[in-house]
């Protein structure tokens, strides 16, 4: 159990007011240090699954354990704290606050995460130096690091987003289609960098995409269709 990063048991989730659950996952788990690709078509509930694991929403029923915390027993505040400290999240795009520099965007990761700050301090680095090191690894020049985020290219922005997710070595990195805005060469480069950094920090990587061509690069690939036994919800629109 202790090497389990995400463990799901009889999980269902329905949007408030909806009759049909969008997610019903009888059993699934991800071990620590694994690199897992979750593949699913648009509207198959990928984002919903991620927001459940990230602790934004709570399961309607069943059990969802993240890093040995049963999320349904945690309060909203505790889940926010767990996300801040242990989960690095990368969006499809628009990850950065446009008015901050790349460096400041990365440093934002520890704003709400005392545990991440402690880990950086324990490694004998300042937050600033740690952020700079990560950005160096991910291939941003010193000048680019001080540039305003909105002046960077999409590829550079995604690498800054990856650096922010990785800063302070959270246990779990969740990437929600981070490469869909990148072309093929950038995509492969980005994934390789992400793998390398995750390995270095020992972080688990949960990578979600609709793109089947990425499957070859991951040791473990899961089809969300096979995982989720809820009847297909058409359209995939889940506004409240």
């Amino acid at each position, binding site marked *: 159990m202790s090497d389990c990063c995400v463990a799901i048991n009889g999980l269902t989730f329905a949007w408030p007011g909806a009759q049909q659950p969008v997610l019903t996952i009888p059993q699934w788990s991800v071990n620590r240090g694994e690199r897992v690709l979750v593949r699913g078509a648009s509207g198959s509930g990928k*984002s919903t699954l*991620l927001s459940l694991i*990230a602790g934004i929403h709570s399961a309607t029923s069943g059990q969802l354990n993240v890093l040995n915390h049963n999320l349904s027993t945690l309060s909203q505040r505790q889940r926010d704290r767990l996300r801040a400290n242990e989960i690095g999240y990368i*969006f*499809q795009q628009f990850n950065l*606050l446009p008015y901050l520099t790349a460096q400041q965007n990365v440093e934002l990761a520890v*704003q709400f995460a005392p545990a991440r700050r402690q880990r950086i301090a324990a490694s004998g680095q300042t937050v600033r130096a740690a952020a700079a090191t990560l950005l160096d690894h991910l291939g941003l020049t010193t000048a680019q690091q001080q540039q305003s985020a909105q002046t960077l290219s999409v590829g550079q922005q995604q690498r800054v987003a990856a650096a922010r997710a990785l800063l302070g070595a959270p246990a779990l990195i969740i990437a929600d289609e981070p490469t869909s805005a990148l072309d093929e060469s950038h995509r492969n480069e980005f994934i390789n960098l992400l793998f390398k950094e995750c390995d270095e920090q020992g972080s688990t990587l949960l990578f979600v995409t609709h793109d089947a061509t990425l499957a070859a690069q991951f040791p473990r690939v899961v089809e969300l269709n096979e995982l989720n036994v809820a009847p297909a919800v058409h359209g995939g629109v889940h506004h409240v």
Partner: protein
Amino acid sequence: MFRLALASLWNRRTTAWLTVLSIAISTILLLGVERVRVQAQENFANTISGTDLIVGARTGSTQLLLSSVFHIGALTNTLSWNSYQHLQNLPGVAWTIPMAMGDSVRGFPVVATNTDWFEHFQYGQQQYLEFAAGSAFAELDSAVVGADVAEALELAVADAMTVSHGSGGMSFSDHDEHPFRIAGILARTGTPVDQAVYIPLAGLGLVHGEYQPNTGNTHDHEHEHQHEADAEPPVYTLSAVLIGLESKPMALRLVRDINTYRGEPLTAIMPGLALQEFWRTLQLFERALFIISVLVVVTGLFGMLTTLLASLRERRREMAVLRSLGAGPFTLFGLLVSEAVLLTTVGVATGVGLLFLVLLIAAPWFQATLGFVVSPSALSTTEWLYLGLILCAAILMSFIPAWRAYRNALADGLTVKI
């Protein structure tokens, strides 16, 4: 966190500045109205002091007050020299000041009086008049002018000046065969005294042909010719008489005595009471001004509310990013509230700063047009209270967009909607 709010605001600085400006302007208006109201009232109450009674011919108390103290409007009725002598001899009367008005020097009212004026008239906190230059008039063709008159007409002691009939700036009947020489210039008082010209009663009698009857006199004047048998008075009629009493409690009895005087219909008023009464009639106007300025503040705050609500749409992305980094819904709530507090505080501070700047620059203009000084003195308790209320209202209002942000944070989660 605060730095983040600042950076986010800086990113939207155009709308932020406009919001700050609208709050600043509404603050200026609210404080400005309050300041003018309080200082006008103070100045108003300071115009006359130590005078227990004002007596004139039968008229309204406000009219008598306005014309005798503020030189506003004209008294159509006059009281006779006989009545004046009667008033002087009433029991308990310590001093009297006769006033005859109706003439002017290039728009400034002329008050014909005697040296009792300089000896007994008090303003502010029982302050007597003082001379900035020269002294009281001694000759019948000498005059004393207020500080504003001397400044506006560029008069110095020993200069000559022509009195015109009537109160207009231009008159077709100048008494230019009888020029007056300036004997003294009064020190500034901040009251209507600064705007008046004082000449001896005998001097007025002279130009009106009452003192030394002149057959060649062609202009018609309002003073009635009632030749009395006894010693020739300098003028036949007076506009008003100011009276000081030996003891204040006698005032009420004397008012009744004078109002029922049989020789002539007279009106006696107590200036303090009349001032209050008059101020009360102005309160409607004052309240309307206050309500308007409060509404302007509300408008300014609604402007901020609109801006904040509109910004929420473009900031959903920002909110989702912060949420993904572990910011709780309450943090986003706080972000919005602190933004409102920041905008309002800067707005209010800018407003106060601009107000002081305006007061500093426009003080001479206020002095010239309103006749009193609106000084840039420290903020009063009431003014601090108003500023506090603006801030509280802003915080309360910001709960609306903050609540929206909170709700969005819970509902949207990490899906970034564009």
